[in-house]
C-alpha cells in the first residue's frame, strides 16, 4: 500500500521558534509538494520539488523554506514561526509521467502561540 507519512500530526510552537515538518514517501515518486490548508481558502501550494535538491516556489512561499536531500524525503521549514502560520500542512507526492494524481499524507496541524 502506497504511503506518504508526515512525522508530526499535531505541533504547538511559540512565535519565533524554528519548525521542521518532515514528509516521507515510499512510492519512489519524483515530485513532492507542501500545501497549507485554511478554512475558506482551500489548498494553497507552498513549495514543490521535482527532483532531489531541486525546489520551486508555489503560490505562498514567504516565510517558508524546504529541503530535499533524498528522493523520499521533503522537509518544510519555518525559520521563525508566526501566529499567521497556524494551519494544517499537507504533504503530497506524485510520479512524473503519470496522470498527475497526488498522494497525500495525513496532515500536520501546527499551532503557533
Amino acid at each position, binding site marked *: 500500500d502506497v504511503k506518504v507519512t508526515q512525522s508530526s500530526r499535531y505541533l504547538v510552537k511559540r512565535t519565533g521558534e524554528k519548525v521542521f515538518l518532515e514528509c516521507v514517501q515510499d512510492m519512489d515518486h519524483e515530485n513532492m509538494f507542501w500545501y497549507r490548508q485554511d478554512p475558506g481558502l482551500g*489548498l494553497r501550494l507552498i513549495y514543490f520539488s521535482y527532483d532531489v535538491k531541486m525546489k520551486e516556489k508555489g503560490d505562498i512561499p514567504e516565510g517558508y523554506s524546504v529541503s530535499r536531500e533524498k528522493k523520499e524525503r521533503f522537509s518544510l521549514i519555518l525559520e521563525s514561526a508566526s501566529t499567521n502560520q497556524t494551519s494544517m500542512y499537507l504533504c503530497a507526492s506524485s510520479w512524473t509521467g503519470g496522470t*498527475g494524481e497526488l498522494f497525500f499524507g495525513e496532515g500536520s496541524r501546527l499551532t503557533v502561540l
Partner: protein
Amino acid sequence: GESVGLHLPTLSVQEGDNSIINCAYSNSASDYFIWYKQESGKGPQFIIDIRSNMDKRQGQRVTVLLNKTVKHLSLQIAATQPGDSAVYFCAENEGGADGLTFGKGTHLIIQP
C-alpha cells in the same frame, strides 16, 4: 490563480438520498480531473478520476461527469451514507510542473 471552483461550500442531504457536488473549471487545456474526499482531521483521499476524452466514469456508488462544453465537473454519490460526510475537492491537471489545481471544497453533511 484559482481556476477550479465549486458552486457550494456546504451541501446538506438526507441519508439514503443521492448527492451531487459540482465544480467549474476554466482551463480548457486540462486533460485530467480528480475528486478527493477529506474526512475531518485526515489528508485528502482519491475517490475517482476522469480523463478529458471521457464524459462519464463510474465507481462504486460514485459517478463523475465531465462536460467540456461548459467546463463543468460533477460528482454523484448514490445512496449517501453517514460515512460520506466529508469535504470533497475537485482538482484538474493543467499540465504544469506545480501539480494539480484545486477547488476550495464542498462540505457534505449527512442528515439522519
